[in-house]
């Protein structure tokens, strides 16, 4: 077993563990902290896949901005009551997830994957190449994404504003 395999298995085990903690912790703040850990681990996996730029964006946007937003809302609403240990949908949720995981794993492991990957050039995953494809082939989606973010900002302000009669 090579060192890259060992690093991958370590990251994968930690990622599955922190994802399980997101779902099964009863305290919401603990869930958010576990999600931060999971997002960091995914960012490290991105870097090992030669996507350093996307990994940095993941840490900045997800672990930085979005999780701070989540924590602000948790602190603002302060839901003190812990939810019941097992709701009505517990068994149903487990069954659905097991079926989904089994189907996905069966599908994925039977697939013929390219074992010998494309030899990555020096520029692959660098900010230059990401920006080049973003501003040449994907200009229209880029502009649409900026309009979408503007609409989201306006929508969030309108929705969360206190109503005055």
């Amino acid at each position: 077993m090579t060192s890259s395999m060992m690093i991958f298995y370590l990251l994968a085990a930690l990622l599955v563990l922190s994802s399980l903690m997101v779902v099964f912790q009863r305290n919401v703040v603990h869930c958010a902290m576990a999600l931060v850990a999971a997002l960091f681990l995914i960012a490290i996996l991105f870097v090992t896949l030669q996507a350093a730029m996307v990994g940095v964006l993941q840490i900045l946007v997800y672990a930085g901005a979005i999780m701070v937003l989540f924590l602000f809302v948790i602190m603002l609403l302060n839901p003190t009551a812990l939810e019941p240990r097992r709701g009505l949908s517990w068994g149903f949720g487990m069954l659905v997830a097991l079926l989904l995981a089994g189907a996905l794993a069966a599908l994925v492991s039977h697939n013929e994957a390219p074992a010998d990957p494309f030899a990555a050039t020096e520029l692959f995953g660098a900010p230059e190449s990401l920006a080049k494809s973003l501003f040449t082939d994907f200009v229209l989606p880029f502009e649409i994404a900026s309009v979408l973010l503007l609409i989201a900002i306006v929508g969030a302000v309108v929705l969360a504003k206190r109503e005055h009669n």
Partner: protein
Amino acid sequence: MVPLNHYLILSAAIFAIGVVGVVIRRNLIVVLMSIELMLNAVNLTFIAFSRFLGSMEGQVVVFFVMAVAAAEAVVGLAIIISVFRHRQSLDPQEMQLLKW
């Protein structure tokens, strides 16, 4: 080099864990966090395929998924705040105004 299948199986496992969270949790904030987890599992698949097929398109798609996820989180949290103001509760099972 880690084979592509390993990344795909890891990503499938994370996605399934996210589905569990959406179905069984009774707190809207945790449901939203589980959705973020599912989006990230899909992102991992995109990045793995981008590396193994030697194409930058996967990374560009992940960039757009992040933008959409940010918009979704902002609007979702605003809706949660507004719902909490009206009902003083975060339990999705109490939101059944449209149930006949």
